[in-house]
């Protein structure tokens, strides 16, 4: 039986990709950014922690989806996905290989569980998906895990509520536990933490709010799932709303235990947050 063993959350700041792709990780600006991933790299390299599959919850940044079609929740079911060209050429990363049996299994169960998924068989994936892979797996010739992409709209409002995202995670968990093969599955939530990329208020960072969010991933998940969008917008900046994707991860876990935390300001315009949660019983 497949099992979700851990949840991993991380910001997906494009600059992290630039740092890795251009070999700048040791430069003084980048060093504290990357240092916080060392623990995770070591942890995930251990055979007992290595995931067979990562369910990677991210948002598309107007790369695969423009205004012509805007799915609220989408799941990638194709064999593989390619890195998107976001305006500076595609990131030089390996192809993203899916586990289509598991992806379709999850898609079927989510729809039966009344999540109105959009199934995607052709899409390029942008920094929201590839930066977390690079931050945690480095620069291998092939990604060491299969990836099931789950895409959440956080661009055009209204987006799904945090609570709906949390329940999507709960439904993903039930689906994974029904999958007949023995698989070590991790769920990753990406994006955030506080940042704002637009307007005169750009550069907003709320370290106190972010740290409480990190604390409550284990201390008070019930509070987190009830946070309304307007609170993210006011407290964590207009792009801090990406944290709803962490709630999908959180919903898929049971009594998570914090194994590792990394928080650093700034990474580009963003408060970088990263956490590793062991799944409990």
């Amino acid at each position, binding site marked *: 039986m497949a099992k979700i063993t851990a949840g991993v959350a991380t910001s997906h700041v*494009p*600059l992290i990709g*630039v740092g890795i792709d251009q070999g700048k990780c040791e430069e003084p600006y980048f060093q504290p950014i990357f240092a916080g991933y060392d623990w995770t790299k070591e942890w995930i390299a251990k055979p007992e922690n290595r995931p067979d599959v990562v369910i990677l919850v991210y948002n598309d*940044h*107007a*790369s695969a989806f*423009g*205004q*012509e079609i805007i799915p609220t929740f989408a799941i990638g079911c194709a064999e593989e996905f390619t890195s*998107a*060209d*976001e*305006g*500076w*050429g595609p990131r030089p990363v390996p192809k993203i290989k899916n586990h289509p049996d598991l992806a379709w299994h999850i898609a079927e169960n989510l729809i039966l569980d009344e999540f109105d998924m959009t199934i995607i068989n052709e899409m390029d994936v942008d920094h929201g998906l590839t930066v977390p892979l690079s931050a945690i797996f480095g620069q291998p010739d092939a990604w060491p895990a299969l990836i099931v992409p789950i895409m959440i709209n956080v*661009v*055009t*409002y*209204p987006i799904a*509520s945090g*609570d709906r995202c949390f329940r999507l995670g709960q439904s993903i968990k039930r689906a994974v536990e029904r999958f007949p093969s023995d698989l070590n599955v991790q769920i990753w939530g990406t994006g955030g933490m*506080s940042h*704002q*990329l*637009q*307007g*005169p*208020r*750009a*550069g*907003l*960072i*709320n*370290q106190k*709010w972010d740290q409480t969010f990190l604390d409550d991933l284990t201390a008070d998940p019930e509070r987190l799932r009830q946070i*309304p*969008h*307007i609170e993210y*917008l*006011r*407290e964590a*900046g*207009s*792009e801090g709303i990406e944290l709803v994707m962490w709630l999908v991860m959180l919903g898929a876990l049971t009594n998570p235990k914090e194994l590792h935390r990394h928080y650093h*300001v*700034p990474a*580009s*315009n963003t*408060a970088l947050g990263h956490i590793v949660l062991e799944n409990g019983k």
Partner: protein
Amino acid sequence: MDRNNQDYKAAFGDIPGTLVFTAERARKGYWLNQFCMSLMKPENRKRWLANEQDYLRDWKITTEQKAALLARDYNQLLALGGNIYYLAKVFSTDGLSFVQAVSTMTGMTVEDYQAMMAAGGRSPDGVRSIKEGK
């Protein structure tokens, strides 16, 4: 949770220096944003950089939007329905980083903006709510 759109959107206008990308903005900026997406193709970036005015002629975007694009006036582009994830294709094509482009919207120099970020970023105090001034 707000279960109707008017209640849901009511407070969006109360956040200082922030434009939430609602349906109203998405509709206003539709072709502006779709134009941005066209820059995901290298051949289009080349054509755009070679002759911006010429490239824009194919797109159903307003004179105001065109002027703001040519001037790289990102605050104006947001006001005219642009969304930053779309507009990122324009500044990426210019070879600018997010920090370089984003700083232009704040009235600060890149250096001052970077110094603010290095010092912990912009505090939310005073910019949470226009009405409540907190």
